């Protein structure tokens, strides 16, 4: 894909250029904000990697100008500014993602691919994997190590909620609100569903964090 990189720092710019070339992407590197708008009009890019602190202006101004013109180009901000306000401002102005320097290169590439795919109108991810469990949201299928597992509607919703946010503990309240049918607010109900789910899926999938909630580990 073709990437426009607006980054004033020489060391980072050169290194990122090498990364993009090694990955087989075409990259155009600008070190100032002023030529960016003209460049985006004259050439077509798949994505913009935008640094915020530029010598002749702020990266957010470039983004604002871009969005004011109605250009729907996916933009990934890379910045050292890590406060919540800065990140929210970036998203408010229409950034598709925000990565804080320093970052891991694989993460940059994954996020870049994700925003480009989203801009092409690709379907939402609907296949979830954690360890040897696979869950297909669209077809409502669950397999463990290739063996199909039959779940009730509530159990499927519970497992889907947990797998969508694998590696994160979901509190009982969150699980009850998102996965249980409304009205089933009693605290034992959740335990019963989890107990049944565990019996069907098998051990070592759903971990309990006592006093907090449950989680599914992505890599076991």
């Amino acid at each position, binding site marked *: 894909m073709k990437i426009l990189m607006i980054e004033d*720092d020489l*060391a*980072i710019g050169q*290194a*990122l250029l*090498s*990364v993009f070339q*090694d990955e087989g992407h075409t990259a155009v590197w600008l070190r100032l904000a002023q030529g960016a708008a003209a460049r985006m009009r004259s050439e077509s890019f798949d994505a913009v990697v935008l640094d915020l602190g530029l010598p002749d202006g702020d990266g957010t101004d470039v983004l604002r100008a871009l969005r004011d013109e109605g250009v729907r180009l996916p933009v990934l901000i*890379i910045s*050292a*500014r*890590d*406060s*919540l306000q800065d990140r929210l401002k970036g998203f408010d102005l229409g950034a598709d993602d925000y990565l*804080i*320097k*320093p*970052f*891991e*290169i694989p993460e940059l590439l994954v996020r870049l691919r994700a925003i480009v795919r989203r801009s092409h109108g690709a379907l939402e991810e609907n296949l979830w994997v954690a360890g040897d469990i696979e869950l297909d949201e669209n077809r409502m299928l669950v397999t463990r190590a290739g063996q199909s597992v039959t779940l009730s509607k509530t159990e499927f919703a519970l497992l889907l909620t947990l797998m969508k946010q694998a*590696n*994160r*503990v*979901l*509190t009982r*309240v969150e699980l009850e609100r998102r996965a249980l049918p409304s009205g089933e607010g009693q605290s034992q109900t959740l335990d019963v569903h989890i107990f049944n789910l565990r019996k069907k899926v098998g051990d070592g999938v759903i*971990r309990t*964090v*006592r*006093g*907090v*909630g449950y*989680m599914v*580990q992505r890599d076991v």
Partner: protein
Amino acid sequence: MFSFAGVIVSVAIIGVLWMFYEAKVTQRTRTFSENKAHTLNILSHLVDTGARPERMLPALAAVEVNRERMFKELDYHSRVRVRVWLDGRLLYNSMPELPDVLPEVAARGAYAWVGWTAHDAANRIVVERRHEVDDEWMLTIWGVSFLLSSTFFSLPLLLIPAWLIVGIGLRPLRSIASSIAQRTDADLTPLPDSKYKELSPLVVAINGLMHRLSQRIEHEHEFLTDAAHELKTPLAAIQINAHVLMSRAGAEMAERCAEPAAGLRSGVARATHTVHQLLALERARAEPQVAQACPLTNVADFVRERVATAAHLAVQRNIEIEFDAAPDAGGALPLHLESMASAVDNLISNAIKYSPQDGRITVRLTRAASGYRLAICDGGPGIAPDLRDKVFERFYRVPGQEQLGSGLGLAIAERGAARNGGTISLEDGEHGRGVCATIVLTGAVG
């Protein structure tokens, strides 16, 4: 210079001079009146003798003896001259050695004299009595004590109003002092204007100092934040270049360089972690200029959320983490969420970091006397009691440990807790293993 001390000294000098002048005048009038009475006394004695010289002279001698005895008893040193004329002829002179005319005004080495002359009805007997005015009496111990005694005994009367004036007058000053004393070290907001005009220069000066101080602190804060931010760009460059280097090295090279590559990656990760911790430390600092909302937050829900966020790290290392909220710990406190979260997160992250594999961490929330008590206990190596104050110092790390860290976690936690009116202490862990980090929250957000 016209100063308060100058005014006091001049008033004292004028007072003393006035006192001496007054004493001098009084002494002269009193001596004059006494002398006049004595003169008339002598005259009446002499009239009684029937104007016969042989009876007058012994009477005059007796009067003189009586006077001398009295002067001796009273320790008077002034001189008295009595002269008596009978039918125009000088009959008696008690001090013939003195000149005829005596000075009325004091001069150098000579006292002033007062005098009175009296005569009988037939104008046959004339009595003249002159008395030296004893100025030096004032300089004797009797004179001085007489003059000073009034001042001395009036001292309490002077001091009571002075004491009242100082007490009442300093009351506004005391209220300013106590409002300064009650402040935390982070509170540099200006003092309210004093309603007393005399105190406004003090208030203005203190507010000026506070303003300069907070500006300076703000500059240092900005410097530290900028310095930390500046480090991120070179760190990012190192990280990206390391990635390019490893991805371009062939499979064989990658195998040979696996160890230094891992070292490079963990070095960058550690530096990045330190930079982020530094920024978190600065963010946990109370910012008096920015009034930030501290929403009323359910403490148990808040802690449960923090445990949920961190728990996957524990689960990855097969550490069991458990949250236990007492049934009565469901109340809400005003919390500054960002700093409180970084306090709790750092304590949980420490507990996970130092717990052994298959260890156990308990996060326990209970009601305390005036708020909540959050204890985070691990089963790790623990911290020796004599190091438990030292570990809160920035960049201090317990010697001989293998875990990587910035040495800032507890400092951040302490600042974050302090911003929420809490304190952190470290105690022995449960069953004598590990350490319990305890935050006591009172809900007094700073």
